[in-house]
């Protein structure tokens, strides 16, 4: 898989149809899960009435936010070890998307929190803090890349920060278990299997899948733009190697 993607030509050929396909399928599934969430799924009194429908945006965006950070760290590691240019392009493309998803997780969480917990934000809640920190890491990653002189340097600096910042991912995931957090414990991604009624679980899982596919499509689109942007440099590199 990695090998197939490591070749820019193969990547371009593959993503030419895969990216739009992902965007379409992801969008369709997303529409379905939101429709399920908003109009089909029964109201749940314990989780605060109709507001619980926010779950169908909140939880997928939370998953995607964490997944995109892990993606950022992983692509950075791959780039750092093997110097596959595509891995760097992937990292560069993931960052703004991850920041957007993290912002969405924070926003929907706050909106959900106001009626259920009676507050938009709690500063000593480990879950919220660690997600906020992740948001700042994405911002810092982008600012650092932007501040660097050349693409190579941006890639190296970004990779270092992304890998160091990976400390925060387990912190986010396990924050609810380690500290007493007001945020509810994991009920889907648990070692002993999901503890959520299937009426909610199915649209939620499909929604998560939808965002995942959509995200992959977006990432590929950004990477394609990046590859086009770098074509010019390749010409210079050819000139350089004297051929």
């Amino acid at each position, binding site marked *: 898989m990695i090998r197939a993607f490591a070749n820019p030509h193969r990547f371009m050929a593959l993503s030419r149809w895969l990216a739009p396909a992902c965007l379409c399928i992801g969008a369709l599934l997303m529409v379905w899960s939101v429709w399920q969430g908003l109009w089909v799924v029964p109201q749940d009194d314990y989780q605060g009435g109709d507001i619980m429908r926010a779950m169908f945006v909140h939880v997928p965006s939370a998953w995607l936010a964490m997944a995109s950070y892990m993606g950022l760290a992983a692509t950075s590691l791959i780039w750092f070890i093997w110097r596959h240019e595509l891995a760097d392009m992937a990292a560069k493309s993931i960052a703004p998307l991850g920041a957007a998803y993290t912002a969405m997780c924070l926003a929907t969480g706050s909106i959900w929190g106001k009626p259920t917990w009676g507050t938009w934000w709690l500063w000593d809640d480990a879950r919220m803090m660690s997600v906020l920190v992740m948001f700042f890491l994405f911002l810092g990653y982008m600012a650092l890349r932007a501040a660097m002189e050349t693409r190579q340097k941006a890639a190296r600096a970004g990779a270092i920060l992304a890998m160091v910042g990976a400390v925060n991912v387990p912190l986010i995931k396990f924050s609810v278990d380690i500290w007493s957090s007001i945020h509810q414990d994991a009920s889907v991604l648990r070692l002993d299997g999901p503890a959520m009624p299937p009426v909610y679980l199915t649209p939620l899982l499909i929604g998560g899948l939808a965002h995942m596919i959509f995200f992959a499509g977006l990432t590929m689109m950004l990477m394609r733009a990046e590859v086009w942007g770098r074509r010019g440099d390749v010409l*210079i*590199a050819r000139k350089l*190697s004297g051929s």
Partner: protein
Amino acid sequence: MAENAATMNEFLIKAVGLGAIRGERVLFSDLSVEAKAGEALVLRGANGAGKSTLLRMLGGLSRPDAGTVERPVRHHWIGHRNGLKPHETPRAHLTHWGRVWGSTADAIEIASHMGIERPFDVAGRLLSAGQKRRTAIARLLLADRPLWLLDEPFSALDTQGKALVTSLIDRHRASGGAVITALHGEAPFEASGEVQL
């Protein structure tokens, strides 16, 4: 003077197919450089041609955009920047790098050889331009290293200082060392080769 006098036909540094891109410009490409014991290469080129860039690649500071550098021996580096901190006196500078390199040389003796015994305890930021340069060059005498990479070593030096550094270079070559230096104007020593950028 060189610590492990290499046999005469072995290279002390060898770079093949070097290339450098800066911005949208190709500074140089497919450049090869080799220096053997006793040789002194001079890097030539107009301002901005890429001499410092090449030297940094030879010293291992910059990653070449193309090509490879082999450097089997240790080397000394004198760049555009002297490596002297604003609060550091020449004494502190030489003592420090002497310690790093396990040098047994006497810092005071080296200083008087380099003509910096008078400002020996003056902080770097108060030194004159030439005194800073002399302090940097004094590092060459702290440890025997076969290869010297010097970026405009004569800049800021007075006439006596230039003669001094020239004699250092000659002595180093005579004892089996090699020198690669970026220079403007005429070289005050006999160059064994030039690289035009």
